[in-house]
């Protein structure tokens, strides 16, 4: 099999996302570990950028033993969430990467399975990062084409393999 990018740049993955929305408590020296476990039943925690990033960061690259996060194919700032819409942008490691559609498809399948159906999910290649950007975007955001791709058993097996790590949250 042709390898599109034999020597990609590896980035250290960030530690678990620290949520910006977390309320700050006054400082003290008490052992407050236990206090953190208690869940406040009333506060609503909306689905945010970090949560969606957590869903897709551990997806494996089809070509390398690394995660999409380590290759900086996906990152939290490239995700935006509004009322009922999610936009995910991803960056292929090289402009001629033939795996881009597969990566996008993996992201789509993961989000299809993990987000409430009220969301419309759009997945785009980062503008200017791929030579056939338009074609890839079209393939990824066309309902019929995605459905057709998922009819192909060999492709489904490949996608499931990419998702294995993500489904165990990188463990």
């Amino acid at each position: 099999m042709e390898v599109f990018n034999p020597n990609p740049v590896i980035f250290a993955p960030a530690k678990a996302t620290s949520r910006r929305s977390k309320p700050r408590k006054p400082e003290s020296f008490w052992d407050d570990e236990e206090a953190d476990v208690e869940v406040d039943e009333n506060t609503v925690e909306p689905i945010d950028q970090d949560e969606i990033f957590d869903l897709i960061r551990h997806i494996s690259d089809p070509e390398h033993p690394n995660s999409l996060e380590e290759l900086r194919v996906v990152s939290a700032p490239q995700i935006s969430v509004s009322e009922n819409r999610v936009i995910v942008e991803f960056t292929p490691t090289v402009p001629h990467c033939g795996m881009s559609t597969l990566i996008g498809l993996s992201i789509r399948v993961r989000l299809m399975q993990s987000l409430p159906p009220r969301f419309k999910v759009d997945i785009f290649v980062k503008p200017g990062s791929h030579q056939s950007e338009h074609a890839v975007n079209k393939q990824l955001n066309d309902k019929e084409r995605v459905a057709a791709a998922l009819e192909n058993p060999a492709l489904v097996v490949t996608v499931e393999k990419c998702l294995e790590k993500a489904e165990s949250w990188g463990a």
Partner: protein
Amino acid sequence: MDDENSQAKSLRLVQTWMAATSKKDQIVGDIVTAVSSAQFALLDLVKSLGGYLTSEDDELRTKGVGLLSSVLHQGNLTTNRQTVHALTLFYCGKLDDTETIVPALDGLVALSKQPNLSSEDAVAVIRAIFTYVKMKALVQAVRYHVFSIVDTLLTKHRKALQGMGTEFISGYVSLAEGEKDPRNLLVAFAIARVLLIEFDVSHHVENFFNITFCYFPISFRPTPSDPYGITAEDLKSRLRDCLSAHPSFGPLAIPLFLEKLTAGSPVTKRDTLESMTVCLPVYGAEFILEHAKSVWNSLKIEVLQPTDPSTEAIALDTIKSFIRVISSTDAGQAASLRDIIYEECVQKLQEPEKSQAKPSMKLLCTMMTAKSSSSEVIVSKAFPLLFKLVNDPTETANRPSVILLLCRLTDACHDVTILLPFKDELMGVLTAGFESSTCRQQTLALLQVMLAIRGLLTTEEIGYFIRTLTETFLQPSETNDEFNDRIVTFLSMVNETRHLGETALPLLFSALPDRPLERDAAVEHRLIKRVLAALPTLCTSREHFETLYIRLTTKFEIVSFPVSGNDLVDREAVSAYGFALLKALSTSLEAKIAGNHVDTPKYEELLLPRLYNWFIYSATSTDHQFLAVECRVVSLAAEIVSMLSRASNPQRQKAQIDSVYSAFFQGDPHAIAFGFPRIPKDAQFAPFSDSASDAEKNLVPLAAACFYPLYPEVQLPVDEIHPFIKLLLNWGVYYATNEHQAQSAWGVGSSILNKHIDDSPSAILGQLSEFWRTNVLNKDINYERRCASIRAWIWVGKALLRRNHPQASQLSAQLMDLFEETPINQKAALAIGDSLCTDLVITKSNHAVVKMLHVQKYVNTLLPLILSNVNTSKPAQISYLAALSSLVQSVPCAIYIHRASELMPLLICSLELPDVDIRTNSINILFAISGEQAASKILAQHASTLIDSMLNIGLDSLGSSTLLRIAALRYLGLLPSLLSYSALHPHKARVLWKLAKSLDDVKRSVRREGVNTRTKWARCSG
């Protein structure tokens, strides 16, 4: 015995055998016995067989030869040279005959082992085999005989066979060609190795290549029920011995290896690499050099773009072998080749951010271990390059990766002399690295590696870095927790040097302020927490712990009892800071006690009087009460008391408990308290009196902590036990103003009950039943008090059931009397299980009486009671269900699994109850039994009900708690692994559709569980 007689006897036996249809082995045995006891000679047997051996009838001939061979086999007879010779000739003749070849080979197997077989006979046997035996016409077992004969003769008559020269070699090659059975191959490979090494095969290399390399790579997989126990590994290692047996294989083998390496599966790759590791040194430097380029190119790929970690590790071994081979010659070609290889790897380091940089470093390090002389070359190429990169201002982003590469390279240099020329520059990297926040962690790793190389760093240099690191650790802005942890680990590792006590510790202690911090000083708070967490790890030695003890206790006194400006301070902050200081002290003490350090008893004497003094002073004074009223600080102090008392002995415990009793029950605080600040002589301290203040009562846990760990033989300071128990139980119900105080009083009561009930059983049991009547059952006292009495009763139950007391189950079962009465029945029901909950009071380490199997006994009494009563009317039924789930969820499932079929319907019933705790308990029980084989059938019966229940609970965000929803979803996610697909299939679509709702739950943790569960259901298929 005369000739005629013996002849007759042998003839008789032969005829019996020929005619027999069963027990033939026994007759053979008789013949063997006769021959070995010299009743007749082996040749007599041949004579008797005469007619059969030459019979025209094929069947008779086969039988005749067969009998002779069986006798030879079974007999293990030593026969003389002539007999052996005669038999050999006879058998060789029989090989020509298709009817007798099988038994004849059988006989030859036995004969070949005969010590009297001459070399001429051996050669004759081999010739006969080469001439007559057509391997393809024979079955496996017979072919195995042929290989065995050759193998035996090869061992015993090697010289003679060597003398046969080409005849033997080519004869054997055609014999072995096309063999497929693994059992035969194991022998064939062994023979081939001997031939390759011991015989002159220079003209037959290609032939041998054909009969060995055709099996490479071994793809044999034994059937699951293989009776022969031959593994692929056996075959692989035997074959590998052949492949590496002759240097002339090189030209033929290397192309094959390289081809398998590029095209093979990971298993083939590993086999090929392992074979190459063994073969390369045999094939020799000269030959390898010719192919070195292609070998290197194939091998490096396995490291630069590794298939998997294990293949990568094996490839590194092969490369090591490769480098050793090409370093073993002085040829100029070899030297230039090595240079090219080193250069190639070093060049890859130029781009440290790329994925091939790390593997290239691995390659270099491997090559350094392969050949010591290569270390110098590699180091002289790699270090300057890496130093240049580190210092290049345009490469700052890559600096962490470069330092990591430096770290690996340094680690691979085991010899300090190689490193010394680069030491100055390495020191420069360290100094600069610690200053930059992005590379600190990597720099620390480098320092650790350098420290491990003996003689590289001087003591002064180590001291310098310890100071630098401690200062970095004390930077308030340093927020990288992982790095801080590593600094602490590092400092504790260099413990043996004096720098810790002289440099690091004084800096750390002086960072602790004398007053609590402002509430909004987040950064400083983190710093102090960090320091206090580090100190116990660093101060484990006797000397350092003493420093810690003095510094922390003094600091505690300065903070808690300030001389001036007392009223300006935020009082809760003072308590919290005091708490943190005590916590650090208690953590260190805990480690010392766990490590059985000899200096711990000293601190029992030093610390306990001061500790009691601080709190009693605080409780009796007017302006320092905040210490005593803060339960968290008191609890921590109580833990320290318990910890020290547990490590004490009965004599010291006795003295201690008498003083504590005088102080807490007889109004003499000076009996136990001593130190700063001085408690006034006339101070009133009587926590158990009617007029006691809240602050005084709050110190009851400190007294309790001293009671808990008492050895049973320590005499209590009271005359009679039962009035004391009454006092404690009632005090907890009527006088205690918070749960800490009450639990402490009941805990003491429980501990005494557990250890001393046999001192006066009837009086004590009478006291208990009076408590039950006047407090628990008494409807005239208020509801809160009755609930408190039930909590006290849990402690009574615990004390007795841990020691397997006969009354234990009955006293707990009394709680069922309350099941009809709402709302107290809820508390009573949960109390049945709570008696089993673990606690820190009635434990072995506190010298309590804890018997084996007490849990089983308790459950075996109460569970049938509950099960037989559960089908009653409404309020009681709910209580029974609640009692059931609280009881069962607190014990291991082995105890109740045999009643799973009765439990399951009840658990499903309790899933419908509104109470969140009962439902959570029930799901926990379902989790506990999920792994049990015994429960799987029952589970399958209730599958659809369980799925519905879990969906209902998991998706209902109004009537449940977050934890309950998570538990329900998680259990639902477990079901696909517990049930067969046929049980899941009818529900799959519905579950997936419904679970979409859980992805929109208000809580993030529930959504996450929803995602997991949904994935598991989506993945399950038939």
